[in-house]
Structures are given as structure tokens and as C-alpha cells.
């Protein structure tokens, strides 16, 4: 059995957007510059990396976010996964660093995502300015949600905001991936495991009863 291939349905859409965004947003030289440098100097980790050690964002390739981009990314991470009674917010467990690591990586998927994320963050601040005259990170929760509600689900996205919806979907996936692969996130989602045991006990009685298997 081979591990299931991750479903990457939105890949082609995202790539198309990269092309479109490149043409449409030529007037954002700062973003374009950032989009080029980090990834160009980054080196892949190669086909034989050391596996049994811990890597942190920035260990393998330089990160990208400038202060303003990072502020917007933090705000969006925390809108997607805010703190609640059970667990902290995404930014409290380093998710923005992971997003930065992702978009700074020297691989084709990540390079395509890099453009989507950087252009998307710029779009988000532009849209915030247009609607509320402030950057996204400075908006209150209701204002942030007003924008997010328009782009959080592509099938319902407002006309003209389909590409922003693709950005949101990508960013949400990166945020949840980053969060639920931390010890805090694993506990929150209800994963119990990665621990040696003498015996595999199977599901407890309460679960078997709920499943109608007791």
C-alpha cells in the first residue's frame, strides 16, 4: 500500500492565477521583487536529507515576509484559527512562520503558492483600505469577517473575487496544516498516538457502543 496522494484540486487554478496576477499586478514592484529574491537564493534540501532531526522555518532557506506582510499574515492566520476555550490561536504556535517557510521554498508548488500568497496578502490590504481605509491587521473582527465572508468559499464567492477565494483556500489550508501538525494542534483535533504501547487495545467500549459495534 502506498500512502494516498494528497488531492491538489486547486493547483491548476492557482497556477492560472499566477499568470493572471503577474499581468494584472505589474504595478506592485515591491511584491514582485520579494517574490523573486527569496526563492532564487534558496536551495532544495536534496534527495538525502537527515530525517531524524528537527527543522525550523528559516533553517533551510531564507524566509520572505517583510514586516507588513507578516502583520497581515498573522492577522489572517488568527482569523482562520482564533484562540478559543480549548486551544490558542494559529499565530501563538508559529503558523505564520510555517506559511513563510512554505512560500520561501525552492520547489515548483511552493513557488506558485508564493505568488498566490504574496499577491493575495497585498490584495487583502488593498481591499481593506478600499472598504475601511485601514490595513487588514488593523481592522476589527467584524470588518475582517466582512471581507473573509466574500472569499471564504469559492462556489459562493462574489463575482470578480474568485481569485481572492483561491488565495483564501490556499491560505486556510496552510494555516490548518501548520496548526494541526503542532503538538497543541494534534491534541486539539483529538489525535492520540505517536506513543509506544505494549499492546494495541483497539477502540474503547464507549466508542464501540457509539459505533453500534459493542
Amino acid at each position, binding site marked *: 500500500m502506498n500512502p494516498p496522494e494528497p488531492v491538489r484540486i486547486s493547483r491548476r487554478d492557482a497556477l492560472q492565477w499566477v499568470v493572471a496576477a503577474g499581468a494584472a499586478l505589474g504595478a506592485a514592484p515591491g511584491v514582485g521583487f520579494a517574490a523573486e529574491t527569496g526563492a532564487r537564493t534558496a536551495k532544495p534540501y536534496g534527495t538525502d536529507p537527515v*530525517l531524524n532531526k528537527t527543522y525550523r522555518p528559516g533553517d533551510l532557506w531564507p524566509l520572505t515576509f517583510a514586516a507588513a506582510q507578516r502583520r497581515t499574515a498573522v492577522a489572517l492566520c488568527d482569523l482562520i484559527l482564533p484562540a478559543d476555550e480549548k486551544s490558542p490561536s494559529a499565530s501563538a504556535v508559529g503558523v505564520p512562520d510555517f506559511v513563510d517557510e512554505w512560500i520561501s521554498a525552492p520547489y515548483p508548488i511552493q513557488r506558485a503558492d508564493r505568488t498566490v500568497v504574496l499577491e493575495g496578502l497585498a490584495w487583502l490590504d488593498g481591499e481593506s483600505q478600499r472598504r475601511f481605509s485601514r490595513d487588514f491587521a488593523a481592522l476589527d473582527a467584524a470588518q475582517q469577517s466582512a471581507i473573509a465572508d466574500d472569499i471564504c468559499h469559492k462556489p459562493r464567492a462574489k463575482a470578480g473575487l474568485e481569485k481572492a477565494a483561491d488565495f483564501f483556500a490556499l491560505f486556510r489550508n496552510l494555516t490548518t496544516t501548520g496548526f494541526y501538525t503542532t503538538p497543541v494542534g494534534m491534541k486539539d483535533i483529538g489525535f492520540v498516538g505517536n506513543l509506544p504501547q505494549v499492546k494495541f487495545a483497539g477502540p474503547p467500549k464507549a466508542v464501540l457502543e457509539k459505533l453500534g459495534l459493542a
Partner: protein
Amino acid sequence: MPLLLERKTQPQYDVIVVGSGAGGGQTAYVLAQAGVKVLVLETGRNYEPTKETPMFQTPGQAPLRAARTPDKHFGFHDATVDGGWTVPGEPYTVRQSNDPSGKFRIASDWLVAEAKQEWMWWRPRMLGGRTNHWGRIALRMGKHDFKPRSRDGLGIDWPFDYEALAPYYDKVESLIGVWGSNQTPELENTPNSSPGVLLPPPKPRGYELLVQKHAKTLGIPVVPSHMAIKSGHPNYAQVAERLHPGDPKAQEIFVADARQRAPCFWSTPCGRGCSIRANYQSTTVHLPPALATGNLDIITDAHVREVSVDDRGRATGVHYVDKKTRKDMHVKARVVVLAASGCESARILLNSRTPRFPNGVANSSGKVGRYLMDTVGADVIGQIPALEGLPAWNDEGAGTALHLYAPWWQYGEQLAGKLGFARGYHIEISGGRQMPAHGVTRWMTDLNGGAYGKKLKDDARRYFGSTIHLAGRGEMIPNDDSFCEIDPDVKDDWGVPVLRFKFRFSDHETRQAAHMHRTFREIIEAMGGRVISKLATDGTKAINPGGSVIHEVGTTCIGSDPRNSVLNPWCQAWDVPNLFVTDGGPFVSNADKNPTLSIMALAWRSADHMLAEMKRGNL
């Protein structure tokens, strides 16, 4: 692992084994235990699972949360070194399904879901080969599987029947440790092992029990899997006697090493390999006791390019490129065994051209490279409301290994011609509460309307563990249009001509894949769930690309007639009696039984024949 690091070989060996995976490891183990001087050549680097395996590492500790990249095609922690669908410096060529010109190009696809290649070829470059990362599914071929042509008129019969291999299945299962259960009555074409051979299977996981319950209503049996994972300590003395009857020294070496292998501790994915040596890897099960005999040398980074033959047409040894020095080396032996993997062994034979063997050594039949097969694969993912909102519990089990599976259940209907395709498949079940990885909540978006915020967190808690993944793995019938040959234009970085591939599935395979999708939908709906992956009624859309299941077999076919087979029933070349092939190459059918266990059983049987022939003075 103590190797021949100074790279000085003996002037002459009894046997050279090319390759250190399932076939090579098994061959080397049997021969070294019998006192034969063996040299194993491995094209990859040395690899030490006890030191290198990332046990308990989380995706959060890896770059990019361990996502697949062009450097690590199965994700960061997968036990594959310097390889995958592409190997640096070692290309192969294929045609693209979207290129009508039919031109051969250097293979570059690395994401199966987006592959356009007609064929994909997975290779690692490490000691132990693919046994380090494989799925550990250890199924016996059954009596139909050895005689497919006699049964339904299609494909090719093996030159012997199940009974000839059964004792070797018992031996291999005893040596490597396989959990499973015998069924009463025995299921059709799904052989039981001899009493006392199998280790006890673990309890099923929650989602597995639920699939079992509902599949039963559709007439699909779901039973304990057979996995090459040590689930407990066997009676070592009994096992040793079964493996090496009347040979106390071999028994002692086996027992001393086997006791060092810890039983499974029900955690961490098997695809990373196993530092406690609970699962079978050639590097943790075959090679350590073989080295302990003192009869085995291993050279890694040794890229074999051809078999050398003398004027009489006998193999004298092999030429290899020492990847460390780039020098061409030659080593000699009385017997040469190729176990470089299906395709790679064919490549070596085809590249060994002499005036006596203008089409390659052992190729007077013209069959080297022919009858390339993979396993038919198709997958469906379902979301099961009954699995939502359950209290958290440890349902990890043996890493990502199956505890239950469904063997093929429609032999009768199929033989009666009611299904529209000739061969069966089994179902591999995964899902549930596995360690969160990249994309863990992505599938929820369609279910919750793109939720974010507090609702997304609540949904993640509710839906986590509520998906199941059903993978069909079925038999492919060999055909004349699927083969490998030497590409006349392309050489690898070591100057060795590479393979190019032609491959196609027939209607038997694509209809089978469509049947998988239909059946999996039925199972998921019987469970009250819904399919969340793409369903296809067109089998050509349902089927995974050729090679993507990584069960490539064939290309050095076994047979009873030298005119239409490469090897005799002992995996011995008809044309060159001191040349053997003991990997997946000899297969003439590729049953829905993942091939690794059969490769090992075949290799052991072949090695026994070698020993007998050496004793008789014939080799």
C-alpha cells in the same frame, strides 16, 4: 551495519548477488547461512535503519510539514534515499499520454495525481532498496494465480503450481515475521499458512470494524491482514528448526539476531522504516544475520552495468561502476544472481552484449524486457458521519499498516464471465484517526461551506478521523504492448544505457478499476457516508498510472520452454546456467497479492536449487 568499507573484494566469490532488497536479501541470507561465500552489490548508499529512521518525528518537525516535494516524492520522512519516481543522474524514458507524437522523453513526473507518463518507475538508491519503505502487505499467491491461463484462457501459466512454493511461503513468513489469521474454511485462492507460522494479528481499529460490518451486508469479507510486522515473540527454537532443519549453526545465528528484533509497539508509520526492527526490511532482517555468518561481503555505491561471460557462454562475474571513484570494476564468481528489481535486472541483461549474445545475455528467446506488469490501482475516499464527534482515543495501531483487508470475493461470478473483466482485486482500508499531516482539514471545506474561525476549529474536532480511504489493488494480465528495452540514445551519468518503457492497460484492467470505484461507493454508502473524492464510471479515468503502485514485475519471465521464456522453473537462465534472477522479474502473472512475499519465496526456492546444484558440481 559492518560492510566492506575499504572496498577491497576477494578475488573470487561463490556467488555475486546484484541488489540488496527483498530478492537479493533473501538470496544472500539463504546462501550465506549455508556457508557459501557471497558478495552483494548495491547501487545505492549504505543505510542503517537503527540509526537513521525518524521514529516519532512529527510532520511539524520536518521542512514544509513533511509535504511531498520533488526531492522526497512520498514526503520528507519516507524511507527512500536518492530516489523516487526519478533518480538523480539515472534517467529512464517514457511516452507522454498527452503527446500524440509518441516521442520518448526523459521521465520527470513526481506527483502521481498529475502524472502524464505512460509508465512510472520508482527506485531508491540505498541498501535494502524498497524494502525500507514498502507497505509490508504480505499476501500469498493462490492456486489460481499460478495457473491463470489454464483457468480462464488468458495470460501465462507459471511452470509450477502453488504447492511448489507453499513450503517457501511458510519459511519466509517464519523468518521475517508475518501477522495474520487462517480462515476456516479457507477462502478461495487465499491460502492459509501452515499451523504455527503466522503471528497473531492486532485488534482492528474503529473504522476498520465499521467497514467490516457494512461490507458484510454487500457480501464482501473483511478479515485480518497479513503484514510483515512482528506482532510478538514466536517460539524461536521452533522457528529456527523450520528455517534451517538440522543446521544448528544457522539456527543459532538466526535466533541470536531474531531476538534483537523488538515486537511492534503500535505507533509511527511503517513507511519510514523501523529502528526497532519490528517490520521486515532487508536491512533489518536479511542482511544482519547473513553478515553474522561471516560469509557475506557487501559493497554499496556499486552500479552494475553488465554480466561478463566467457567463451563457453558461462557467466564469469559482473562489471560495475564504483560510484565513489567512477572506476570500472570487475568481480568474479561461480554464480551470478541478478536481484536488482524487475526492469533493472532486464536492463543489465540487455546491456550485456557479446558476439555470442548479440541481443543481450540470456535473451535468445527475445523475451527479456517483455510482459511488464504493475498492479491495478484505484482509490476512493469517503466521509462517514458515524465516525464524527467520537471521544478521542488511540486508534493509531501499527503505524499506517492495515489491520484488516478484504480479499477478492467474486471468483465464481468472474469465471462465469459475469463481471466483464477476468481478474480480481483486494481492498486496502485506511483512514480514521491517523496523525494529522499536510492538508488535514482541506476536505472539510466542501462540507462546511468554507468555514473559518471558531467554526472551523469546532468542525476540525468534529470531523477528524471520519474519513476512510479504500484502495483497490488488482491483477493485471500481461500483454505484448507493455515492456522495457534499451533506449538507443540515452545513457545515465555512469555511462550505462538506460531503459525506455512502453506500457498500456487492457480493458480487463480498466473495467476492473471502474468496478472498484462502483464497489467502494457502495461500501461507503452502506456505511451511511458519502464519497468525497472524484468517482469515475470510465475505468480509464479511475485507474492509476502504470507503475504507480510500484509492483512492477515481469521482464525476465519464468517458463518451461526456452523458446518463450528467459528463465527455467528455478529462476535460472536457460541460456546461461550459472546466471539467476531472483527479483520480481520472473513473474508471469501479477496476482492481486502484493509481490514482495512471493519474490522472497521464489528467491529462497531458487537459492535452494543453487545450493543443490553446487553440491552436485553442476555450478
